[in-house]
């Protein structure tokens, strides 16, 4: 249940937010940018931005969602700036993670994800890693529900061509599975393009 503070939350509550939100935000950022150092900087920036609004926050439960939105927006802005400078994300993984359950498969998925335009990548990560609904994804990215649906459809089509039959992508067949949301487990129906939760 969200905590409601009459005059804005305290610095101690911000520290609690940082420690609670950090792992999930960091992992999402890694999916979005692949570079660990950059992911850490983006998450720090997002949380700092959240703190810059801290005195106005009345619902600390919403603060994590705000931080995530700030992080995703900072990421898409960063990619946009890179594209302006004719820079592109590299095809190499600068810092491999410590544990790799299936390196080949993992790299394939990350590499395929990196082939998507930043906005489509964000849509895929928010919907299929963060387990957000269409409406929640639209809110996080500041775009319409329809754009989320079309971006999801385009992204899955692209991923399907990149990954082939090795991956069962939403829309291939109706099914039910269990997925985790930001590191925690929750049951849900498998998403279909344009129809997941919304």
């Amino acid at each position, binding site marked *: 249940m969200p905590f409601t503070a009459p005059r804005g939350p305290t610095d101690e509550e911000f520290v609690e937010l940082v420690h609670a939100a950090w792992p999930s935000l960091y992992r999402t950022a890694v999916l979005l940018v692949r570079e660990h150092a950059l992911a850490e900087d983006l998450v720090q920036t997002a949380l700092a931005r959240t703190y810059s609004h801290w005195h106005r926050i009345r619902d600390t439960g919403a603060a994590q*969602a705000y931080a995530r939105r700030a992080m995703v927006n900072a990421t898409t802005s960063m990619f946009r700036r890179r594209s302006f400078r004719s820079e592109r994300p590299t095809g190499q993984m600068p810092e491999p993670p410590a544990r790799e359950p299936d390196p080949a498969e993992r790299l394939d998925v990350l590499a395929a994800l990196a082939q998507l335009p930043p906005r489509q990548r964000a849509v895929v990560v928010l919907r299929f890693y963060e387990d957000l609904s269409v409406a929640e994804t639209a809110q996080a990215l500041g775009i319409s529900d329809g754009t989320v649906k079309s971006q999801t459809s385009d992204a899955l089509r692209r991923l399907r061509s990149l990954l082939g039959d090795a991956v069962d992508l939403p829309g291939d067949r109706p099914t039910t599975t269990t997925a985790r949301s930001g590191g925690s487990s929750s049951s849900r129906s498998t998403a279909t393009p344009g129809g997941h939760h919304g």
Partner: protein
Amino acid sequence: MAEQLSDLLHGCADTVDVPHPDATAIAARGRTMRTRRRAGTVVAAALVVGALGLGGVVLGNALDGEARSSQVAQRGEEDPGSAAADEYAERSAWSAGSGVTIGTTTVDLGSPVAHLAQTSSGVVARLFQGDAGNSFVLVRPDGATVELGIPSSVVHVEGDLAHPRVAWLEVEGETMVAHVWDVDEDREVGRASQPAQEPGGLSGLLGGEAIPVPRLDGDDVYFSVDNDVHFRVDWANGGATALPYAVHSVHDGIATALDDAGAEDGEWLVYDVDADRVLRRLGSDSIDAVVSPDGRQVLTLGQTDEGSAIGALVPVAGGDPVPLAGVGLVSTWAHDGHVVSLDGETSALVRCDAAGTCEREQVTAPDRAQVLLADQLVVG
């Protein structure tokens, strides 16, 4: 058996070693951002006060005097409406107390002027009426005035140099609404809205330290619903585009924005909004960057370490900046492409053309503390 996409993503991300966060350092960075944002919000007010304090810019009486009246009368014999419009296009407008000087014509509105917004039909003056709120008066170039029906609750309007329209923002529930008002027809002609997603409500935007300010450019209105979510909306048909930057100034689809995403010392960028690309980078030294009415130049304003103003015209298409000698930090664009400035050190009105040639005119005013140049936002 094929893997689910969600499982694969979790398999990739959930095994990543997560570094420990430094909450204290993050909070310190957040404080810096907050300070910078507040500084940006009040920079216009600081510019006005600072320039006035430097040397005592005084305007008004000289422009209200016999010489000015005579000049207007002489031109009026030829074509009063056209001549007045030309003067407005060349000299913009300013106010001193309750007096508004548009071009070379001065009128007294009876109440202190809090803000002037330039439009193609004249300037819209906001008059503070105490508990009654604000009233808005269109002052045409020939001095004719029209009291507008803009609601008294409206805090601030922004004008469109190329069209007879102003716009303002209001928070309605959890929606930010941009209202567009035709000052010739004196009626609302369009509105655009977007969900406002600021956590904890939006009261801070209006009741706290910031005034939400739209930018109007023809059929488009630009506004932010919080610090990170920015839109360009066609106010006539509602088509919206999310932008990764907050438009600071825009004309003809050319916009300036402070690129502060992830940085405490942001850089000014010039965007072609339609083409979705950066046209020019202006560095981070300037404290203001305003697009010219034709979208071909950007007026940059900054200060030396000693506090002296530095102004320049930067061609959007490339090329060296043209320095503007003697412009102050309080400067605005006139319709015809001249930069009009108040030089606080010499009490002069300065007009500079695109080549950097500047003309100066000594001016005085009855109460220098109340002098406002058009399109200068004063808050706080």
